[in-house]
């Protein structure tokens, strides 16, 4: 992925932390390509749902169909039962269908026609959405946004990167050449190892300081919930793990905070009118919260 190292790394963080990713950007910058590449490089079951306004919840979860031969209803699994699910343009569909996916992400199983079907493990959703200002979209409700561990933007590639991209794609798409580097079991093991990453009380204290900051900030109507704190810790653990460390340092938290926290807070309308963004508020919090550099901080 040319020029998308950071996006790729963040996806990996979410994957290892058993979280999900929301990619928000204009069409054509490589959102889908990112997910496809990730799925191909893992030896996993990849499913794709293209959300359209007429998509039904059962198109996501699957349906039970009557089988005349066996005289029984037979469950036909929907795309949500894959390992890696690309939910493309999630805000183009109706809230009902959206929540079918989002609830599945929160629980570890789905219920269809009274049958409880467990979701597969690993289960990783990567949803993409066009920026909400675009026509014909159903914005995701704020309360449901925090089902995603990470929300990120892709952004346009630089001119140099785009040149490189053009020359590489002129003879067939390079994605064809990708082979898996990790099996499903290995991925599950890695996810377990991430859980083992040590987070000291001093670092937790820093996370809490940051999160509390969002709750007391003037421009914020609704701050980050405790679920946000947990999410930040999980993300920091995975980030530390990727960097070959078995403990979290404040740098990890600092790096992950904008991606983990910005979609978990609602700005006041004044702040929005002033052109403030959640990312800017997180940045200002990062540069005003002091880092714990001594042990034994009293709680």
């Amino acid at each position, binding site marked *: 992925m040319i020029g998308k190292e950071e996006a790729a790394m963040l996806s990996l963080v979410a994957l290892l932390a058993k979280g999900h990713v929301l990619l928000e950007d204009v069409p054509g910058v490589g959102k889908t390509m990112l997910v496809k590449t990730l799925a191909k490089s893992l030896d996993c079951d990849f499913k794709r749902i293209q959300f359209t306004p007429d998509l039904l919840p059962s198109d996501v979860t699957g349906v039970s169909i009557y089988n005349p031969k066996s005289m029984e209803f037979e469950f036909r699994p929907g795309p949500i039962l894959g390992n890696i699910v690309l939910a493309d343009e999630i805000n183009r569909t109706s809230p009902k269908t959206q929540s079918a996916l989002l609830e599945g992400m929160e629980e570890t199983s789905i219920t269809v026609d009274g049958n409880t079907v467990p979701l597969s493990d690993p289960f990783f959703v990567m949803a993409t959405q066009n920026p909400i200002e675009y026509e014909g979209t159903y914005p995701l409700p704020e309360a449901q946004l925090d089902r995603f561990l990470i929300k990120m933007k892709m952004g346009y590639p630089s001119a140099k990167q785009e040149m490189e991209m053009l020359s590489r794609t002129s003879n067939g798409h390079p994605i064809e050449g990708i082979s898996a580097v990790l099996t499903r079991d290995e991925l599950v093991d890695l996810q377990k190892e991430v859980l083992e990453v*040590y987070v*000291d009380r*001093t*670092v937790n204290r820093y996370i809490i300081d940051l999160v509390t900051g969002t709750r007391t900030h003037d421009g914020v109507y609704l701050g980050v919930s405790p679920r946000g704190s947990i999410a930040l810790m999980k993300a920091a653990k995975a980030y530390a793990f990727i960097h070959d460390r*078995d*403990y*979290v*340092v*404040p*740098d990890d938290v*600092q790096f992950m905070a904008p991606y983990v926290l910005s979609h978990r807070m609602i700005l006041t309308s004044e702040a929005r009118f002033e052109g403030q963004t959640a990312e800017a508020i997180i940045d200002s919090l*990062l*540069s*005003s*919260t*002091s*880092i*714990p*550099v*001594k*042990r034994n901080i009293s709680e």
Partner: protein
Amino acid sequence: MMEERQSFIYKLILYITGFLLFCEWMRPMEQISDTNDVRVFFIYATFCFFISFLQVPWYLSIPLKGLGLAFIIDGLYIAERIFSRDWFSVLYEQVLFNIQMIQSQEWWQMTPLFRSLLFLILLWLMSYLLYYWFVVARRMFFFVVLTLIYVTVVDTFTIFDGKWAIVRTFILGMVALGLSSFAKVMEQESISFKGLQKAQVWALPLLAIILFSSAAAYASPKLDPQWPDPVPYIESAAGGAGPGGSGSGTVQKVGYGEDDSRLGGSFIQDDTPMFRATADGERYWRIESKDTYTGKGWEDTLEEPVTSMDPQNISYELFTDNVEVEEQTVMIEMSRQASFQKLVYPYGLSSLVRFPNDYELLVHENTGEMDTVKGDSPAKVNEFVANYEYPSFEYNQLREAGDDDPQEIRDQYLQLPDGLPNRVRNLAAQIVEAEDNRYDRAKAIESYFSSNGFEYSTTEVPVPDENEDYVDQFLFESQLGYCDNFSTSMVVMLRSEGIPARWVKGFTGGERIDTRETELSDGLQNVYQVTSGNAHSWVEVYFPEIGWVPFEPTKGFTNNTDFYTDVETEEGEDPSAAPDSETPEDQMGNPQQMEEEESSDAAGAAGSSDQRYTWLWVLLSAILVVAIILYFTRYRWMTALLIRKYRKNKDEETYEKAYHYLLKVLDHKGFKRKPEQTLREFAISVDQHYQSNDMRRLTNHYERVIYRNEAQSTHWPKVTELWENLIKKTLS
């Protein structure tokens, strides 16, 4: 890893260049200082540097270096068996004496032993410093530049020829700097030294460049000096009064000396006690006179005859019986430091009452020099009591003495050098023009100096050049000098006017330190302390039928010879003589006038309390200075203390403290960690500045302590080393 990257050979080369550069500092010493043989110092320096390089623990290195020092001091200065009781007592006395001298700021008194001792200690310290500079901190640029400056300055201002020293310093400097930047680059790029060491190719480009550039520099044509020699310019800018010519006009110590053949040059004050005199009043203490003026100084052509005299009856007379005298007694006690083996005596000496029997008294009849001899060799008489006839000269008698000098006096005491400039004679003639008798003429010349812009000074006094006359220089050019200038000039001018005169040496009266009753006199007597600083020269003028009368031309001094006007016989005497009645000696401190002096004593007491306050101020300001120095160097000495402390304690708390202390030191040096800056970010910015990765490595360990809650005791030596390196780098 530090040890791997800094190979032994690399360290050794660097250290040796440092040592050789240091040798450049010692090399000129033999020529520019009074050090006779610097080889000993070279050997000791090599020894110290070697031990420092081995980095042996302090409990070995200090005794080793100390032993070396002791052996050198023993070999050079102390005759006693080394480490015997006497040996230590000699050393102790020397050190004690020198410390006293330092306290009284009499630096020139310091003995060679002590100076060598200090220098050896300096070498010792330099060995540490250079090891640190060159091997640990790798900051040799400053030292290289300093060495170059030193060599050029020494070459310019002294007789030392620094041609090869410059070349050597240059090459050594390039080797050191090249090597160190080489090592820095390697560390920056994290290249291991091990692989390179085998190939040894790495040193070739460096060597080639150094050889090429030095060869090119040596072979290339050199411009002539672009500036004129700066030395004369600087000397003239510094007041134009620097000793010119052959350079013999160095600064001397004031005091009584034998050789007066070359007068001039500056003096340092010296208060070494010479003797104590218990007398009725302040007297001039005569030693000898000299007769021949050479144009540069005085020589004695009238040493003979020497007569052995009975101390009980000394027949050496400076004046005739026509002079009114008063019998007085004086006791002289020589101090330990006084070394002359002759008598100091007051005018009119008649007999020595308390004089050791085994001493012989040899009197030079012309000069008045009285040698004291014990057995066959001159020896000092520590204490004696003398009777003398204190003269009082009567003005009219002097005025009427006339010019009828005996031929032998004329022969001996009218001598003048052939080269004496005429303007000296003319000046003398001009001064005495209006006077009609010998006394008034002499007085006119004596007082000429006080009113014609002459100044008394012991410093910046010139030495006459090869073709310059000492008196002429003083009278017409410098007009600045001390007793020798004034007295010599007066004698020369008197002689040019045909008045027999001679130049006398001795001591002035000294400082009155006590008044007490003695068995020598009926009333009270004063005790005078005479020091080296009281060494003096004055003038004796011959008056027929009277004898030799002392005159005091030196500005700021008063003649304490008694002159008087005989009112009974000479009523209606010229009133102009009245102010001439000089200083009746009593005023100078006759015991009878003690009451008057009480008030001045009180003033003295006030002065001493002032002095106490002065001392208090000195003490306070010293404390303040020390406090300021301590404050500004607080990181340095605190670091030194903490390094020792942290080496001992190996717990996490210590680590945390040490790390935070390092942050503080960095903050002090301008690297402030912002509170929201993570340790890693900070470490990276620090490392970028110092072009190393020590801070990152140290921070990694520290992170494990605080964010991983992990003990780092296994890494302790590494961590300590990193920490020390960083702190030293920061402070250097």
